[in-house]
Each structure stands twice: as C-alpha cells, then as structure tokens.
C-alpha cells in the first residue's frame, strides 16, 4: 500500500523538526506526532494482512504514547520556578 511509502517521509520530516526544534516543547510535540503516525502504520499493517488482533495493540500504543507525553510535560511544568524563560 502507498501509506507505507508516504508515512516514512513524514517521519523523516518530523525528526528533522525534532532535531532543529528550538525548545523542549517542540520536541515533545514531534514525539506526539510520531506516536500517531506509528498507530496509523500499525492499522495499515493490520488492514493489509487482515490481522484483527493488531488493532488492540494499536489502542494500547495510543494510550502508552499519551501517558508518556503527559508525564514528560507534567514534570517539565514542575520546573517553573528554577528554570530560565
């Protein structure tokens, strides 16, 4: 399927944004976008080979990516007083 050829291009562009991103939150945003793309790749993989059980794992990937994003941003927010602007 053509999704498998287009999504890696997006991933490369996101990773370039993550590398040059000036702040931490740019990188966090890029990580969130990469997690969504990974979920879409797993769905396309399941659709290509008709594997229904992979969709459960797509759900759990979404939730795991959400948890790690929220945890990193909570701990960055806690550093408000000592950090520079």
């Amino acid at each position, binding site marked *: 399927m053509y999704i498998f050829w287009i999504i890696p291009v997006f991933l490369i562009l996101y990773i370039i944004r993550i590398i040059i991103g000036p702040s931490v939150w740019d990188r966090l945003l890029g990580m969130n976008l990469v997690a969504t793309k990974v979920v879409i790749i797993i769905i396309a993989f399941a659709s290509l080979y008709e594997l229904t059980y992979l969709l459960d794992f797509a759900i759990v990937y979404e939730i795991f990516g959400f*948890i790690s994003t929220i945890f990193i941003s909570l701990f960055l927010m*806690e550093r408000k007083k000592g950090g520079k602007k």
Partner: protein
Amino acid sequence: MIYAFLTLWIVGALLIIRESKIIRMIIYLGIFSLISSVCFYMFGAPDVAIAEAAISVFSTVFFIVCFEKHFGLAVGVSDVTPESAENRTNLKKYIPPVVFTIFLFVLFIFFIPENPANSYLKDQYLSLFSRDVGGENSVTSIYLGYRVYDTLFEALMLLVGIVSVTHLSRYCETSVKEGKPSDINRADIAVFTIRVICPVMLLFGIYLILNGHISPGGGFQGGAAIASFFVCRYMIYDIYDIPIERIIMVEKIIYVVVVLLAVLFIFIGLHSFLPLPQSVYLITMNLLIGAKVTCGLIIIFYRFIAFERR
C-alpha cells in the same frame, strides 16, 4: 519499505548517542522505541513489539524521575549538560556506532535464515511445542517450557534490581507520613480523561495476561500494562499510601512460588500424573509472572517518586 524503517532506526540510535542534553535524550529514546516497535511488527514479532512499547513508557518515566531528582531544578527548561560530555572530541563519539553499524550490515548480508543448519531447531520447536508444553502461541510455550531457565533468571534479575533500588535509594519517612503534596499543577480536563482511561489499561493488562497462551502477550507485557495504571493513579491523586514493605514481601513469595511451579511441572513432569489440561500450567505461570512484574514496577516507581523526594 522495510529498509526505510531500518534506516530510521539506525538514525534514531545515532541521535541518542550524539546528543549531550539529557531531556532531549529522553525524548529521542521514546521516538527510537516507537520506530523499533514498528520494525518488530514488520518482522512478525508482535510479542516483542508489545514488550517494547511497555518498556518505552517505563524507561521514559523512570529516567525523567531519576534525572529530575539528581540534577534538581535545572533539568527541564534550561537543558543541562553533564560536565563529562562536554570536553570530549567529536570524532571519538562516532567511532563505536559506525563500527557497530558496519558490523550489523555484514551480519545482515551473511546471515541467511533459510540455511538448514539454522532452521533445524526452529522446525523441531514448531512441530513439537503443542505436544510438549501445550498452548497455541509458540512463543509462550518456548519461554515457559523449553527455556524456563531463562524466565526464572529474568525474574531473579528483576528481583535483584528491586532490592538494590530499595537498598540504595534515600529513605525519608517523614515526607511520606505527612503526605507532602508536590507542586504539580494538574489540569482538570487531564485528570478527568485519565480517570476514563485507567480502567481500559487495567482491563487490557488482564486480557493480555489471561490470553497469553493463545494470542501475543504474556506475563511481562500484561504486568507492565497493569503497572502503568498506577502511574496514571499518581497523575490523578497525590498520595503515597502504597505499603511498599508489604509489596516487597509479596513479590519475594511470588518468586518462590514461580520457581516451585516450574520445578514441579517441567523438571519433574507433574502434568503427566494429574488429569489437568496443559494450559492450566501456562495460565498460572503467566498470572504469577504478571503479578511479580506489577509488584516490581510499582515498587520502583513509588520508591523513586516518594522516597527520593528532597
């Protein structure tokens, strides 16, 4: 298609190595885990991919808690650099990854999976696992049947790690007794949504453990999913009322039971005497390993969060 992801994989690994700021390293590690789990799916190993997802969440959480405790306030916004990484020349940093990458390519070219010397053991495992151990997922049958020594030693390694964490981390009982609240500013909408998500995680963990012998999954993955429920719980309520000493006792007892069950069923061959179906052994072992992994991850997480707080 698969070469694009393999290239991205190597690029992510090189990014982690050449970065010198800790918080960026943690974020790159998350991306590297995501890409590597896609590679595992494409090679046809969903068990490993699920384990990689669980490990990525917990390594992110543990790393960020540890470095925040160690470097104090400076880790987040101002991108602290450890002093040892500054004075190194740039060229030396690239030599080990380049050598390792060349080695991997050579290995990839010369390793042919269709070689008969390589596929002999695989054919024997795949033809005999249903009779010997039972179950329908051959991975579960291998790690609970033929390779049960490995499983026992992995469980022992986790136990040793937990004991060393509880031994080495700073014990500060007063802050736990008082229930000192942290200064995390929680958003109401996030708290509400995490409350909706928590039961899904718990249910998914139990599903992974109980279906470990039929579908991809097993004790470790399900245990990590259940332990992530407790990470969510920390993000909702700011209380440290987990009885850690009791959980350590429970984990040690569970380890002894795991060793006893493996010895009774595999080495002595108890299932040939009893009129039980073979899947009972697999389900029981998966449940016990899942409970053990859950206890271990809860202990490490709450120890880092509550006891190391300055």
